């Protein structure tokens, strides 16, 4: 009897204390969520997919541990080349740890590069199937990374990866999106000069954006540390493509330190152009320099 009386009293006191603390606690929950200190609860389908045991563990505040285990387990799928399972695991991992950019980056890389290339080179599949699966996984990796960017809009590393994914010629490129991603990465103020140059390289490949690309190239060229081979050559190409462009020799003097350097850089640019950057005027400039007896 006394036990039941005690239970009732304790229950009532807990309820009363609950009324007092509940509004404060709910307010803190919302505040912490807004500050990004805690995350929204797991979606029911995620709980279902990670299985009962893991869901209990994840629910119990051990989401990072479950994500770590799944990451190790995804490594097994990578070794077995079980790409469908691997991408499913990464979907769960990022559902558990949406703010860990590492998981988004690695997951997308596995899908768009490792899985896609594995299918492309899988000779046991018919050619059409190889290509279809390659494309499917490139797109899957890309959309995975886009989700990562939506979840972490200020992470320049993810934006930079997205720019790379969209800007790789062998990965069904969309240079406009690549340029936009690199631009966002650069404008976070945390990225390296590489992101600014990569923004230019993508912009230069977008149809109808040559003038914008030229303005950006001029802006970047002002700083000595941006004067890498590709940028100098691209600046020359963009300048040369303008209707009111000055004579070629004048342009070469503006874009390179000397004619010898110009010949060396332009030859390399022409021969190693895997990125498929514009090459207007390069052949002409090389011929002109060679006809002047310039040695690289």
């Amino acid at each position, binding site marked *: 009897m006394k036990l039941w009386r005690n239970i009732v009293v304790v229950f009532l006191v807990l309820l009363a204390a609950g009324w007092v603390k*509940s509004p404060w606690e709910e307010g803190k929950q919302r505040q912490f969520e807004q500050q990004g200190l805690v995350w929204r609860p797991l979606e029911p389908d995620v709980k279902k997919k990670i299985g009962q045991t893991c869901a209990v563990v994840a629910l119990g505040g051990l989401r990072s541990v479950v994500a770590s285990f799944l990451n190790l387990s995804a490594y097994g799928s990578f070794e077995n080349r079980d790409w469908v399972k691997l991408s499913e695991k990464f979907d769960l991992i990022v559902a558990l740890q949406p703010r860990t950019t590492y998981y988004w980056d690695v997951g997308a890389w596995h899908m768009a590069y490792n899985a896609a290339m594995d299918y492309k080179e899988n000779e046991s599949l018919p050619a059409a199937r190889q290509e279809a699966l390659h494309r499917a996984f490139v797109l899957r990796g890309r959309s995975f990374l886009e989700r990562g960017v939506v979840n972490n809009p200020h992470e320049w590393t993810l934006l930079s990866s997205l720019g790379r994914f969209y800007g790789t010629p062998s990965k069904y490129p969309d240079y406009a999106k690549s340029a936009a991603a690199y631009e966002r990465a650069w404008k976070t103020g945390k990225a390296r000069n590489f992101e600014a140059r990569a923004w230019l390289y993508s912009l230069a490949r977008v149809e109808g954006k040559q003038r914008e690309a030229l303005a950006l190239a001029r802006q970047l060229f002002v700083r000595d540390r941006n004067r890498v081979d590709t940028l100098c050559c691209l600046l020359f190409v963009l300048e040369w493509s303008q209707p009111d462009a000055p004579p070629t020799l004048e342009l070469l003097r503006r874009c390179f330190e000397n004619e010898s350097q110009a010949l060396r850089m332009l030859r390399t640019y022409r021969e190693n152009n895997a990125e498929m950057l514009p090459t207007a005027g390069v052949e002409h400039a090389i011929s002109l320099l060679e006809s002047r007896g310039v040695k690289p």
Partner: protein
Amino acid sequence: MGKQQSNRWLQPRRVSVIAMNTFTQLVRMKVFYFLMIFSVIAVVAQFLDLPQYNGVEAVYTGELQILKDWCMGVMKLFALVFAIAATALLLPKDVEDRTLYTILAKPVPRLDYLVGKLTGVLLLIFVSLLLMNVMMTVVLGYRAGALLDEQVQMAVSRGWNEPAIASMRAEIQAQGVTWSLQAGVFAIFLQACIVGAVSMLLSTFSTSTLFTIMVSFMTYLAGSFQADAAEFYRVYAKPGNTTLTSVLMKGVALIFPNYQLFNITDAAMQGQVIPLAAVMDLTGLTAFYVVLYTLLSWFVFSDKEF
């Protein structure tokens, strides 16, 4: 007068004697062996170098992330399991050893006994977490330092400019040893305090250790789900739409503590800055719960007959 003085509640000396006694009792149960397992995990985790995109311009901090995930996960698991199991064992063990009768036969208020016991358990959790934290900090600091050197060397060889190197340095340092990470460990301890206090309350009702442990785990899970329950009630319990489920959810939200707030540990592990105000909020919340559950435990325990 002297007798009244000695019977005063919560006399610090008396409480500390009981606490130290409990601490020693638990240490004799070879709890610290767990630290050996932890050190193995901390050492092994740094070799889990999984494949990753490591291109020319990549800044890779994944290995630090994995190391922290493992170490903090194990700390949390230890604190949780220990807070429940050790507290659930306290009263039954004292009854079994007949120590309880000896103590209560003396002028020791039952409140002092309970507070001393709980303090002993929490002290042990604190010391264990402190030691694990030191181990993690050493390993993480070493790995972060090595990674930083490696990446700076690479950046310099590739001609990165100073702001770019500084940005990379900041990124790696944010994944290394930070004050926020320490705040994350402290949040684990605070959560363990509440879990321990709940477990103590349950053990004053129950006569079975197993029952206390099981119900404590259930309440922990319910507490982790408390925020979902509160949200469910907020969304569905509109006027005229109150269902049995929404009332139940409200009950869950009222009775159980919200453990999700303590998941700031995850944010700390990802290199996010934890504001001091958030830590203070959690400390205040923990104090509220610990005092509440201790007083309730005392209420039940005060007229318990042995």
